[in-house]
């Protein structure tokens, strides 16, 4: 077995997981709302882009921008219309967001979203050999986009007033409130931004395959698994966990059996909950647990 295959596809797979999970992690870290519409918004972003391109005949680039804008708006609405009423009640937050997510996915299913027909164009059709390993250009594009998003997010949260306010809320909500940061406004922004990120993930990853409803559930499971392993609320932990799970999945696929790949993420969650319940970087929760 060529070790380069594992290294390159492990790296690609890890960054795809980063793309899938970052929106969920951002929304949770700021608002403490587990946004279970995450997977549905991933599929919806792909479907809307498909509609804009194939039914309305819009330019692909414009369709992408419109889809991201619509999904961002839906994230804003989810918080302002539904979540705000149950904020602070974790079980209700899960029920509300999960219900909205299921409603979106089942509506898409009802519309007839099936088969391999709903396909988004790849950004650029070419195969590149990296150290002798062929990788298609869409995966390379996904890696670049994931890296750019991580960088942009870091700059946003460290160099802008709005980003600093989000970090403030994430680190200590009461202290941030005392300093005049509006918690609801920050949470709305976080859910909208998280939704925008999952829309970007959908539009980047879906062209490798097709728009299909079950992917919504899979993406949600992967995002939750990565966030739990990384430590809920920790962005650094999310990225690190994505690499751990991503490489573990690739190693299992190459050296053991591909049909066990789905088990890896769930097994990682179980192991983390047994040995380090707060996750790899879940410091805040760790302190609470000690107390």
């Amino acid at each position: 077995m060529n070790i380069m295959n594992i290294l390159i596809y492990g790296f690609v797979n890890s960054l795809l997981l980063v793309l899938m999970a970052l929106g969920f992690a951002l929304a949770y870290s700021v608002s403490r709302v587990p946004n279970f519409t995450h997977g549905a918004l991933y599929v919806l972003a792909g479907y809307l882009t498909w509609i804009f391109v194939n039914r309305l005949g819009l330019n692909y680039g414009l369709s992408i921008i419109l889809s991201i804008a619509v999904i961002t708006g839906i994230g804003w609405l989810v918080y302002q219309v539904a979540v705000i009423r149950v904020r602070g009640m974790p079980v209700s937050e899960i029920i509300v967001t999960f219900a909205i997510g299921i409603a979106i996915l089942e509506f898409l299913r009802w519309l007839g979203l099936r088969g391999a027909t709903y396909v988004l164009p790849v950004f650029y059709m070419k195969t590149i050999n990296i150290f002798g390993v062929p990788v298609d250009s869409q995966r390379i594009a996904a890696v670049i986009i994931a890296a750019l998003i991580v960088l942009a997010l870091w700059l946003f949260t460290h160099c802008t007033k709005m980003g600093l306010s989000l970090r403030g809320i994430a680190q200590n909500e009461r202290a941030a409130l005392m300093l005049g940061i509006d918690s609801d406004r920050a949470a709305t922004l976080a859910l909208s931004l998280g939704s925008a990120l999952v829309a970007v993930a959908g539009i980047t990853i879906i062209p490798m395959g097709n728009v299909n409803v079950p992917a919504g559930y899979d993406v949600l499971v992967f995002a939750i698994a990565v966030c739990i392993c990384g430590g809920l609320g920790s962005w650094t932990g999310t990225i690190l966990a994505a690499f751990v799970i991503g490489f573990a999945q690739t190693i299992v696929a190459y050296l053991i059996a591909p049909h066990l790949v789905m088990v890896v993420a769930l097994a990682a969650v179980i192991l983390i909950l047994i040995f380090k319940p707060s996750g790899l970087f879940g410091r805040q929760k760790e302190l609470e647990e000690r107390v």
Partner: protein
Amino acid sequence: MKKLFLLILTVLTTIANVQGLEAQPIIMGVATDTKILDGAATIRGLTLAVEEINAAGGVNVAGKKRPFKLEVMDTRDCDAGVPVSEALLVVEKVILEKGADFIIGPSRSEAALAALGVISKYKKIYLSTCGGLSPKFHTTIAENYDKYKYAFRITGESGYMAKEAMDLLTHLTSQYGLNRMFIIVQDVAFARAGGEIIGESLKKKGWEILGYQRYPTGSTDFSAALLKAKDAGAQVLFIMGDMPELSILINQWYDMKIPALPFGNYLGPAMEPKFWEVTKGRAAYTIVNVVNAGNAPSNATPLTMKFYRAYQKRWGTEPEGYGAASGYMAPYVLKDAIERAGTLDPDSLVSALEKTDLVGVYGRVRFDPKSHQIVPSLDPKEGAVGTIFQWQDGKRVVVYPPKIAMGEIKFPPWMSDYWKIKKK
């Protein structure tokens, strides 16, 4: 005057009642996964046939003309994570709530097999038109005939499809010297069975089976299997599965220029007429088994293209995937049996169906009297013929069986160059 009016009213009411009785529909309960291609195609095939039969006057049941009526319920049995028990509840619901006289069963083999028990309990004639390809379906009927005799399969099955594949692959060996295979299947019963059967059978024929990889439903990256196949020196990729994500496998195969011919003995997304368009031509050279003739253009029987064109006219698309032709044939086979039996009594219909012998879209339709599996053949005059096509220049060109073939197999240039393929 008043008496005359009452008399006319009475006569009209009587006529209306008689017509009402005559028009009592025969309910065909369709409990299948409506959101997968095969399920949707089978519903379209069924609808087309039912409309044709009803337009021609309906079914003659002991001298009374009765129309067919479809009652469709979604089992979602092909969705990952939906338990078989959910599908069984839908089968039961279509019997109890919709009053189905006949059942068109679930798509996934696991659900189709489990549905045999429900069918036996309610004594309903059950036709399997799409999915349920596992050989266990008809062997279970044969082993427990008295219990499961109400079930019939009107399509091919994994075992026979493997024989067809074997025949075609043996042809590739004799003509081009290919004998190295890598097997990639979706982790579901029919695909696992198909992969195992083909692997074992080809080993006996001197083929090298270089790997066997299963992928769970919903997988989105097949690079591991493809690179393993390339490293091992595979010449044929044997693929089996119905999940739409298998289009990613074909895209990756094309993008990576893997020097092996993709042969989907059941490859859900590649069956779709739009597959060429959605893959931007990366479907080229992919070989696909669509189970029955009629699901791709050929001249298997005089009815094949007649059905093909009628389907196109009715639905605005060519017959899609597997399930279209068999869905279309099911009402005609039932009509034939009902008219011969003169009743809807299930036990009488079992005998009538066992004596079925008519020419359909995919050849002569007969059932094995013990296993109730449609009798397969390579000749449409003898039995139901399958169809294997290859994507060539945007078209689905039938390459097997020889009696209905419309063209020859072609190889991707990067494979021809790599293996120096020449016809012997």
